[in-house]
């Protein structure tokens, strides 16, 4: 009798362990959806122009601090916009990191969009003001369901890479 009870208890335990280790399934997203992952870090342009120091300026500085030009450290915020077939699906204004706002901005964003063909546009402004985008890229993609399309910014070629 005891043995039977023990077996029943351990069997129940095994079922609980076995079941909850795989079930219920976790549905991450709709089966007809795909993901755009926007991820990169970028140092925006500095807020102002560098100023060439005059001889008087230099004389005022201690010898170890003398340098030909004085640049503001602060960088512009980065405006980023992502459009699909004309409509904006993501946009944000990101402030640079660091106490002096002189660091890079880090972007990591997952955007769920329907699978299928998309006319993607990505633009980034890092020079401040309303002067339009400093960088922009367009791409035609046909996303299969579950596809994770990554959009990065390549500093070497100064352009977006979509793949």
């Amino acid at each position, binding site marked *: 009798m005891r043995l039977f009870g023990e077996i029943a208890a351990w069997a129940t335990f095994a079922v609980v362990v076995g079941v909850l280790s*795989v079930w219920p399934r976790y549905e*991450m*997203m709709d*089966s007809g959806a795909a993901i755009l992952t926007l991820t990169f870090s970028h140092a925006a342009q500095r807020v102002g122009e560098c100023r060439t120091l005059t001889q008087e300026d230099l004389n005022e500085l201690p010898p170890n601090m003398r340098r030909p030009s004085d640049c503001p450290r602060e960088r512009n915020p980065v405006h980023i916009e992502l459009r699909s077939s004309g409509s904006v699906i993501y946009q944000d204004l990101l402030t640079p990191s660091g106490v002096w706002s002189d660091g890079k901005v*880090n972007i990591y964003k997952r955007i769920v969009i329907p699978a299928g063909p998309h006319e993607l546009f990505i633009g980034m402004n890092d020079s401040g003001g309303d002067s339009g985008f400093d960088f922009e890229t367009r791409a035609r993609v046909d996303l299969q369901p579950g596809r994770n399309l990554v959009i990065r910014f390549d500093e070497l070629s100064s352009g977006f890479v979509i793949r």
Partner: protein
Amino acid sequence: MIGRVHSIGRSFYELLRRPLARAFESKQNPLNQLGALTIFFCWIVLVSGIWLLIFFRTSVSAAFESVEYLTHEQWYLGGVMRSLHRYASDALIITILLHVIKEFIFNRYRLNRWFNWVTGIPLVWMIFALGITGYWLVWDQLAQYVAISTAELLDALPIFTDSMAGNFMSDELLSNRFFTLMAFIHLIGLPIFLVFGIWLHVFRLNGPRINPPRRLMAGALLCMLLLSVIYPAISHDKANLAMAPQALRFDWFYLHVYPLIQRWSPGWVWILLVGISVVLTIAPWAPPAKKTTVAVVDLDNCNGCKRCADDCPFGAIEMIPRTDGTNYTHQASVTDDLCISCGICVGACPTATPFRSKSALVPGIDLPNRSAASIRQDIVDQAETPSDDPRVMIFGCRDDRQTEIVRKAGGNVVTVRCMAHLQPSYLDFVLSRGHADGVMLLGCENGNCDYRLGADWTEARIARVRDPWLRKRTDTTKIAMGWLAPWANIANPVKRVGAFRDALRVTEGDT
């Protein structure tokens, strides 16, 4: 308020305890061995993990295939080991959860136990970190999901400047370095911390239960083995960073908070996790428990025999060099912060015998608010209270509901703090002086004693295997041990007393 929460918790606990109490005797009951069972599952995880390690390849490209090899080519051993590794890890989440709940609802986390409680919390963090890094190493789609979500979680902390999640964007960009780091954390770093953490968790206790009884170990191992053979653990498809996994077979034991990372945000998940940990950490003092008067040593009666120190469940007694100039080398000394007035030391002290003349019943160690002398007085008083024949003297633990029921039913009850508070010579005293015809001990069952070792020491002293033992002349058939689950609303204890009385009647009839 908190007492109410405890008592509601205990009612739910009863639902689980009752069926299990039918299947297992109390010492074998998994609910009375939760800490030890957790450690036993850790052993299974460790041993199976070593087997996996032999075949595992710690590189992004080879990890998945090496696990596949174990699972399918070497299914008869490697596959079973893999499944054991997974299922034992899952099982121990259940035992930890129950362990925490049980300590909580039985109010065993305050006073001196705050230390066990607080040191338990980092153990949970370590166990989860182990589980998460473990799933990561398989490098299948679930691993991919876990890796990216964990990276998102870590990115929410202001520690790293570059985005960690950004590392997981394409198979080419993913570096082996990162993967090797995970392997190091899972295989070496965390296990070392965990072993140290478990040691810290129990080292202050006297004789912590590290291993469950053999039969329970066998049951647990067989259970895990059969599950592994019948339903082996398998991987998802290999990770492919160009695709996002859609529906995953999900290990809810380890990954239950993960869906919240996307549903809420990583920041809120941190707030939740840290919040729970903080609430748990301050729980022992919210509100602080009332401290009762601690055990007090009387040097004139202490001969430095060390029995009290050996028996104190919480290591609250230290033997220090003698301070009163007598010829004994040592004396007992109580660390007040560790003592919770269980009286077990009094039950261990050879000087706590009721046969001493009344004025002088001052043992080497005693509880000021429930002295050895007051227990003897209660026995004498109860002996004079009329009762059914044969007369049964019942000893019950303080606070226990069972004791109350028996008392209300007119039993001759003497309460002690813990069954092991009663030095065995008291039993001899009751029987040899004719204060009763039989003695019934209504103590808390083994593994469920508020003072941990009450049932162990009482049984051992009466079985004459642990000092101070019951005198040879005492007839043990006249002593009944009615171990009960504390607070439980079970088989009427009055009936047990009645049954014992019947048994006494039979033996008396024989003589």
